[in-house]
């Protein structure tokens, strides 16, 4: 009995994590008819298997393709910008003594706790006046302010672990300061920066509130917002099969990143929030 507890526990965790994923994949292979009439309830698409029909239908949808491109572009740009600024800030926090260090860390913490919806009505009004409403920069800017705290905390936790004296040691051994920086510090800091970038990207990719409030057309609407407004051919019935196929496509990048960088993500999540 005791010996069985652990494997059972592992199985339980796996079922917990993967069941809804399996379900949405299963749903994406069911025909629209069966889903809306409820003729094939249950988990697997037994009587209503349609192959890749839902996927090709979604992929042929211009709005869906546009929103995927928007999401990738906006999230990537926001990630690059905010990780770049956060790296400078985190370097200063980890290595230098200066006034206002605590202020920066507490501001970052306060913003991380900020209710996003509070900003929506003023930004909605401001962005319309500045011409930023329904544009890429109109989402990139708010995403940056919300991903910066996460990136600063994660990176400063990482940078605190770096033995910075090694840079001087390399210089004593005859390296120029640029060589010392490039050959010693960059390899030590790069994994942390990369991890912060992954977490930041997840954050931006997952945003919903800004996505639905600061856009109105496919010009800038990201994928989570597009999914929630996805109507399909019949406006009175949510197109479950199509929606599931679209959701699976939107989830694939996340699954790939998780599969490739599982170890780094865990390190980043825990060091930023707990260890310090």
């Amino acid at each position: 009995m005791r010996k069985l507890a652990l494997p059972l526990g592992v199985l339980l965790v796996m079922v917990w994590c993967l069941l809804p994923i399996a379900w949405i994949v299963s749903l994406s292979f069911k025909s629209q008819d069966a889903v809306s009439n409820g003729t094939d309830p249950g988990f697997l698409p037994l009587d209503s298997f349609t192959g890749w029909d839902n996927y090709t239908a979604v992929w042929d949808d211009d709005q869906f393709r546009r929103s995927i491109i928007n999401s990738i572009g906006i999230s990537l740009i926001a990630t690059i910008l905010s990780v770049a600024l956060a790296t400078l800030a985190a370097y200063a926090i980890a290595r230098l003594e200066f006034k206002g260090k605590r202020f920066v860390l507490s501001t970052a913490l306060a913003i991380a706790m900020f209710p996003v919806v509070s900003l929506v009505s003023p930004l909605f009004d401001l962005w319309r006046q500045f011409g930023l409403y329904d544009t890429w920069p109109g989402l990139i800017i708010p995403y940056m302010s919300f991903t910066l705290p996460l990136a600063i905390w994660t990176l400063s936790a990482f940078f605190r672990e770096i033995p910075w004296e090694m840079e001087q040691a390399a210089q004593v051994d005859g390296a120029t300061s640029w060589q010392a920086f490039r050959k010693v510090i960059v390899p030590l800091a790069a994994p942390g920066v990369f991890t912060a970038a992954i977490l930041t990207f997840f954050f931006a990719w997952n945003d919903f509130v800004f996505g639905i409030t600061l856009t109105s057309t496919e010009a800038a609407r990201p994928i989570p917002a597009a999914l929630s407004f996805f109507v399909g051919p019949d406006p009175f019935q949510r197109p479950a099969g199509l929606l599931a196929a679209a959701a699976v496509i939107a989830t694939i990048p996340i699954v790939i990143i998780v599969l490739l960088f599982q170890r780094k993500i865990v390190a980043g999540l825990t060091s930023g929030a707990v260890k310090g």
Partner: protein
Amino acid sequence: MTTTIATPATKAGDIPPEVSDRTRAENRLGMKLVAPALIVMLVVTAFPILRALWLSFYNYSLTAPEDRQFVGIDNYVTALTDSLFWRDIGMTVIYMLVTVAFELVIGFAFAMIMHRVIFARGVIRTSILIPYGIITVVSGFAWQFAFTYQNGFVNGWLPFVSADFNWFGDTVPAVIAIMVSEIWKTTPFMSLLLLAGLAQVSDDMIEAAKVDGATWWQRLFKVILPNMRAAIMVAVLFRALDAYRIFDNIFVMTAGAQNTESISFLTYRQSIEQFQLGMGSALAVLLFLSVLLVAFLIVKLFRVDLAQARGES
């Protein structure tokens, strides 16, 4: 710290001038390096919230922008005396308390499993990151379809529920469905934070308690949990504030129907759907203040020491 930067002569025991120059240079460099990040953060949060504060004193509807009119604290009075506001606040607090409680218990069980497991460590960690990484809207849809009686599997799997039970027809079942989706998505994050805390509890202490004859429960409550208090508190604080902002799942699963609306949803509905920017801004300010209050209460009540949790002291 001496402030004799201007005096060139150095007596023995004084800090040499080059050191304080260096300190000043470091100070300047530090400020320059953090400035861009700080400015971006403040411009997009402090400025809009100040503007929200200003707008909240106006009767300002986007459908009639010319009629904007200063009304003082009228919007606040209207909100605070409306039962809808308090119902949504109450609903939000319930979402927060119930989801965080479940996440804490299930997350801790998962953390214990992950801590003990030697085989398949990579596989289990990869699976646990999938709910964390997935878009909340997608998990909302997955659970919504799972709970609908026409094509979901939940009714078929639960023995005490009839096959045509409509989860979204009444407040309590609809709230349960929303909470399930929220708990599913965020428990992995909680369990990873708790796993990190668990790793900091020394095995020697647990071993010593075992030798002294402590039972499994005694070891858990007297040794393990007290020693990971900081990690638990930080995890609870972060998750509670996050849960208090609940929006995505409600939007997707019920769109606020059956009284499932949260305070974030009410704010969104007033400002974006009904274009009442004045009223919406007042609600945004109240939402902001209530988050501050929740944060303050958690920090005071549980005596969370954030600096200590970060290993700064």
